[in-house]
């Protein structure tokens, strides 16, 4: 029988049970919708995070204590105290790391910040003045604290634009006294509004000299991170190698696998984010794929019911000359058309919802979100759903084709 006739017969069979056909493919629709959304939103989130990381500039290098995390369990090793004051001096020595342009050690503490009756809770970053050059942030008013304030552990603070607004409103903040964790700090500078720079929400942070933060806010003598900047894009790799060598020497480490620190360039970080989001996306897709399997079983179930219901029709078709293959093709096509239609609906629905979400994220949440329609996922979605029809339709279709014409005609 020509395929065209087989298609017509299959379509007619489906039309006869429109509402049932629709309900049958819901599982597939939901599965494909979920996959499209996961891929679209996953891609969007990935590019969002990558953009933020790259906002730090490609010459930025981050050194963190502990071994490079390779899996969730090894993240515990981040909390080590291997980065110390003497490491800074060693790294800043041009004999050790010749192409290093800037370095700031950082400690981070989320703390209550109060002025008069106003109180907020924000990140307080203990750092050196180099951070302003690395993040490309400059005070609108006042100045940045310098080497003297760091050496003397001065109680001075620079406020992010948002922090200033929350504590002082429109009134002047420069020279005012605020309290961080109960300790009094003098406001010496206010940063220009800049929004998100990489992982730093510049507007919502408070900068203080790292020495002050270490001693009075945290009571520690180590650092959470070093942020470095190489002199140019070409020297990034060299700076990474030099910094590693210097720190190994300082920490008396011969075997690189025993490093108690890890150095990440922006390229590395981007790669890591890509890996993480890819893994997450795959994970979510696998979850969505389960619903496709469930949907497929639903299709198989309904097709079996349909085959039983239409025993008479099958018998008649065989009696008037349909071969087993004709019947097989008819029911297989019904299943494949059903699931492929489910795939198409799923792609439309998934694409539409992802677009809606991207609008919400851009306008309501204010993220710099780009809508990505995963064309590859759409192609994959249609093929996978058709394949599901083929796989789960095969058994019912075989059952149909094996029916004896007289059994079929006897069926009441």
């Amino acid at each position: 029988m020509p395929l065209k006739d087989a298609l017509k017969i299959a379509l007619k069979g489906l039309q006869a049970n429109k509402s049932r056909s629709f309900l049958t493919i819901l599982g597939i629709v939901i599965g494909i919708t979920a996959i499209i959304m996961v891929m679209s939103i996953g891609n969007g989130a990935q590019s969002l995070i990558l953009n933020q990381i790259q906002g730090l500039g490609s010459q930025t290098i981050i050194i963190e204590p502990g071994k490079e995390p390779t899996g969730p369990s090894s993240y515990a090793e981040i909390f080590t105290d291997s980065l110390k004051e003497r490491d800074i001096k060693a790294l800043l020595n041009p004999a050790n790391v010749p192409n290093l342009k800037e370095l700031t050690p950082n400690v981070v503490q989320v703390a209550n910040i109060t002025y008069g009756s106003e109180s907020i809770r924000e990140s307080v970053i203990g750092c050196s003045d180099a951070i302003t050059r690395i993040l490309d942030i400059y005070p609108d008013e006042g100045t940045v604290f310098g080497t003297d304030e760091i050496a003397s552990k001065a109680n001075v603070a620079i406020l992010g634009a948002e922090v200033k607004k929350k504590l002082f409103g429109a009134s002047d903040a420069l020279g005012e006294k605020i309290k961080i964790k109960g300790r009094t700090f003098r406001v010496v500078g206010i940063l220009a509004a800049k929004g998100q720079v990489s992982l730093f929400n510049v507007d919502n942070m408070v900068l203080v000299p790292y020495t002050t933060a270490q001693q009075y806010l945290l009571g520690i003598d180590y650092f959470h991170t070093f942020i470095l900047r190489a002199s140019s894009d070409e020297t990034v790799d060299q700076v990474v190698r030099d910094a590693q060598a210097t720190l190994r020497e300082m920490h008396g480490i011969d075997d690189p696998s025993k490093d108690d620190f890890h150095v990440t360039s922006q390229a590395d970080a981007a790669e890591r984010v890509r890996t993480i989001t890819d893994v997450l996306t795959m994970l979510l897709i696998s979850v969505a794929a389960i619903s496709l399997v469930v949907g497929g079983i639903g299709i198989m179930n309904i097709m079996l019911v349909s085959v039983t219901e239409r025993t008479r029709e099958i018998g008649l078709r065989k009696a008037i000359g349909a071969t087993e293959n004709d019947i097989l093709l008819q029911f297989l096509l019904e299943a494949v058309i059903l699931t492929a239609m489910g795939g198409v609906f799923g792609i439309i629905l998934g694409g539409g919802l992802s677009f809606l979400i991207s609008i919400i994220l851009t306008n309501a949440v204010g993220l710099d979100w780009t809508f990505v329609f995963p064309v590859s996922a759409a192609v994959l979605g249609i093929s996978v759903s058709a394949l599901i029809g083929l796989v789960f339709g095969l058994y019912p279709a075989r059952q149909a084709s094996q029916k004896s014409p007289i059994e079929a005609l006897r069926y009441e």
Partner: protein
Amino acid sequence: MKKIIELENVHKIYANDGVETHALRGVTFDIKEGEFVAIMGPSGSGKSTLLHVLGFLDRHSEGEYKFDGKTIDDYSKEEIALVRNRKMGFVFQAFNLLPRTSVLENVKLPLVYAGVRESERDAIALKAIESVGLMHRIQHESAQLSGGEKQRVAIARALVNNPNVIFADEPTGNLDSKSGQIVMDTLQNLNEKNGHTIILITHETYTAEHAERIIRMKDGLVESDQKVESRKKAKDYFKK
């Protein structure tokens, strides 16, 4: 005349849950091309089983059955489908039309499986519909037809591929006597005018007497095989 059907000591044994039913116990007869044969018998006599065997709908257990000179064991699955499609036509008691499908589409169905080109199907199907007098009903769906009309659609469907043999299994069983009469007359006309071999299964003597020969079955055996003395003659309802 050529023998279209040759049965030699045909047995059919059903095994249902270990219980064997001997439906045919050694049936022997021939049917020539162009004959109109009625197979009669009470229920359980094996007449329906016989029809199923003759129509390639079921396989016999023992003996030999030759259709068109070739024993059924020599036919492959595909050939069997082909024979059902091209050389046999079936008319069932329950009509078995496709629901939600027009008269024309129902009659065209065997042409689809025969691989007849789409452009040619309408003309062939219309000719068959014309010969059962239903030209005014071609776009009606089967649910809109009376029982007699449904059966005539089934007859048109059975003869659309111009088969050698038309099998009719109690074709008047679900019909009132008037509709039944029209169906019988239609079958008789097909036999006389177009030379189709017709094998009719019935338990009514009156219906059977439209045939020229009656084979009576009892307990899986042929009880008698006689010519009809006073044959019922059809009126030509659909004469143009």
